[in-house]
């Protein structure tokens, strides 16, 4: 079976105040389907940048990225969007729910965009799964942070993604709530067999993953 994600000699250099600034260099990584991988490291070490490149949100300066069996580093944004549409989803530190839509509609949105059948029923089921069936018609600002993140998780699992990227999913939550979110994330991951790539600086969360990689100053190290 091909890997979910394969990265070769990845490099990212940006222009910062007229000076070239290398954020990532010489990164190699392979992630197998259904793997759970934690990327840990100090703030500013380049974790989010790496996540963005892996998920095809950004283009690397050099190196190769193969996502879900397709090489995406040379694709245009729209072509990468099409790849994302086929099975990539996200959970964010700041939830990123749409304020103008109810919880249910937020979960429905990716299903509708991907043209899946019965988006309403699917979304309802997912909300049930994350324990928020009763809050389906509430707007995000009527929900607590933990509830919002649960909606976001339901949305991320909508449409059975092949790979899920999470950027510090518990970063904005208190410990207890954070722990609940972790449980939910891993439980759903187990059920669906989704590949899970998460960025965190919470060692406990990292420890629950099958693999941990450590980021220091733009370089990656496997933690054994």
């Amino acid at each position, binding site marked *: 079976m091909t890997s979910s994600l394969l990265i070769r000699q990845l490099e990212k250099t940006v222009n910062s105040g007229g000076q070239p600034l290398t954020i990532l260099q010489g990164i190699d990584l392979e992630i197998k389907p259904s793997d759970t991988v934690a990327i840990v490291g100090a703030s500013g070490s380049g974790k989010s940048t790496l996540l*963005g490149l892996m998920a095809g949100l950004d283009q690397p300066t050099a190196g190769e990225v193969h996502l879900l069996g397709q090489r995406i580093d040379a694709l245009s944004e729209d072509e990468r969007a099409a790849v994302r549409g086929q099975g990539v989803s996200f959970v964010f530190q700041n*939830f990123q729910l749409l304020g*103008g839509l109810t919880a249910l509609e937020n979960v429905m949105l990716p299903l509708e965009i991907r043209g899946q059948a019965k988006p309403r029923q699917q979304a309802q089921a997912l909300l049930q799964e994350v324990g928020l069936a009763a809050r389906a018609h509430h707007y995000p600002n009527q929900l607590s942070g933990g509830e919002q993140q649960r909606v976001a998780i339901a949305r991320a699992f909508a449409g059975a993604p092949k790979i899920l990227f999470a950027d510090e999913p518990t970063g904005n939550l208190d410990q207890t709530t954070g722990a609940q979110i972790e449980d939910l994330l891993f439980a759903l991951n187990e059920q669906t067999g989704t590949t899970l790539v998460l960025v965190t600086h919470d060692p406990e969360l990292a420890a629950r993953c099958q693999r941990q990689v450590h980021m220091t100053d733009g370089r990656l190290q496997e933690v054994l």
Partner: protein
Amino acid sequence: MSRWAELRLALRLLWREARSGELTLIVTALLLAVVATTTIAVFSARLDAAMQYRANDVLGADMRVRSATPIPPEWQQQADALGLQHTRTLSFASVVLHDEAMNLAAIKAVDEGYPMRGRLRVTDRADDEQGTLRQQGPQSGEAWLEPRLMALLGVQLGDEVEVGRLALRIVGVLLEESDRSGNFYSFNPRLMMNWHDIAASGLTEAGSRLNYRLLLQGNDTALQQLQNSLVLEPNQQIETIQDSNQALSNALEKARQYLSLAALLAVVLASVAVAISAQSYAQRHYDISALMRTFGLAQAQITRIYTEQLLILAVLAMVAGAVLAFSLQAALIWLLQDVLPKQLPHAPWQAWLLGTSSAGITLLGFALPHLYPLARVSPLRVLRRDLTPVPLQGWVLSAVAMLALTGLLWLFTGDVVMSVGVMLGGALVLLLLLTLLTFGIGRWRQRLQQRDLPLTRRFAWQRLTRNGRQTAGQILALALTLMIMVVIANLRHDLLADWQASLPDDAPNVFAVNIQPYEKAQFEQSLDEAGWARQTLYPVYPSRLIAVNERTVEEHGISEDPAVNRDLIITSVTELPKGNRVESGRWQALQEAGQVSVEARLAQRLNIALGDTLHIRSAGQDQYVTVSSLRSIDWSSLSPNFYFIFSPDVAATLHPNYMTSFHVPSEQQAQLTQLIRSYPGVTLLDTQAIIEQIQGVLQQVTLAIELILLLVLIAAVLVLVAALLASLPGRLREGAMLRTLGAGRTLIQQAQRSELTLLALMSSGLALIGAELMMAGVYQGVLNIPYQPFGWHWLVLPLITVLLLWGIGRVLMRPVLTVSPLHVLRDNRS
């Protein structure tokens, strides 16, 4: 995802957002743009038609053709073929006799079908002052006389008068004849008789000047068709309302200009509101766009989704706006039902199109450009919040907006050159102001950094100066709004005042001409004793224009002009008469010998220039005079006006008679009859009917103007609301931040107030400067009303603006004060 699925998604998203209140502001702004334009376009089209209708009362028809020779029967056949109603009249001057008494009368013979339109009020009892409205003229063998003529001849109802070879019995007193044309120089008293008696009277053979008229009524296209097909002789002429009543049409023209100006300004305001709300709409949707990209949507799809949403909004706004506008204009008409004719014509479809298309133009020009960056949002924004798309360059945004406005202006005025000119000028001024303001704010920021200010004030300064460009834009938008309000309100006030002034309660309602020199002093005394406000008695020298620069009028090519074909009423005064303005040349030159001052428009028509020598024959005497000044005349004033004014030396060789106008209060009509008896040689014309007509029209126009002002005001408040709402998310964040730092409610509120006060003061100052400039331009350029700078506005407007902003701010900004800091920091829309 198919196009169809995309459209459905666009619809669904739109619906969900609409439900959450996200779209309320932008939709309201759009709706207002449509409602304002459509209501005003439709209403003024109908009002226009109504005024035309009323004006046609004065004309007595929808259209009239005048001829010095009998109306060719083919014309009537043509009118029949086109389905037009028509009738004939003949008017001429003739002597009317009764026993020893005789008097010159304006005879009018009317055919079947007269009156076609307008009012003919007649009484057959001496004690009845009201009379009844008649649907037909006198029968054969009968005559109706004006009270004045009856007084002059000393006749009663039932007496007989001789008209030519014919004896006619007086069976009616003519109290009102709305289509009596306002030609002040042929105002002998009226005798109305039957068309079929003309031949028997033998009057048409006598060689007096005859005026045949064909009165026509019917739909516009048929009238136009007829007008196009008629081949007119030089002595024949189409008559329209403009010819029949100068004073009325002047007032209407000003009202029309005012209405379209107000409509346009309402649209400008609504457009600004749309732009502001579109911009903040776009900002609030960066996250959605980024997120939709992570779900796999391509850029082009996102562009399409937003465009489709916008188009749907536009269509909705058009439909809802049209419905609202329909009800609103119906309400306006209902309000005005007393002064409007019963059967009001419908507005032409162009008016509807004009109004509703404003939604499309406003959206394209003011909303779409702001949504452009939405598709350009990087999906990476989901990880890095600071990644905001670069909006279109300011100049692109402005250029598109200007283009849209020019389009609107063009639609409204139908004048491309003017529209482009106004827009380019406006753009330049705005750009200049924006640059100056941005620069000024930057300087100010530096200055203030070195000063210690109280905390709240420092906060306000900082907020305003942090983003100089944005603040400058905000100030300009506010200033524009205020300026428009000031201009509109002032124009209204001054327009009404101007009308009031030109038609004061004691406006002259009687003209007196043909006053002989020997009775001049006595006549003057009689008027003064009666206590009637009067004009001076102007000397009048009936004259004819013979040649210009020694070229006869034939050689000069003006012999067909009506002014050349009749006696010119020339006067001589040393002081410039009221309502006259010297356009070129020197008025003072009249103190020299052999000079004449000419009315500018007539001079142009007759091809007469400054310095030309005119050969004028007055009472058989030849005069050679030099044109030393050209004047414009305010024809709407009901005082005697003169095309030519001689220098005193010329007048000294001539024998004048005199004319004047004066005001007779309605309860003193009996005394007027007395005056008529005392001065049988003096001809009097009662213009009260004309004055009442004008006042009726002005009254209805005033109401309309008031209502339209209300629409402009709503648009203005909307701009304020949009501007403040757009800044709400930022304020919420900041307020929450301040509160986490321990700031209390009061402090935040004070800071807010300081800021709003500053905004209000700066924008109202700017607005006043702009308004002063604009008013001066409009007054002198368009409306011809003398301009006076504002006085107390300079105090009141800033105050009102401060209070208004505080008030709106208090309502809109309440969340900033009450929402818990935690909640705001968590709010993912921030």
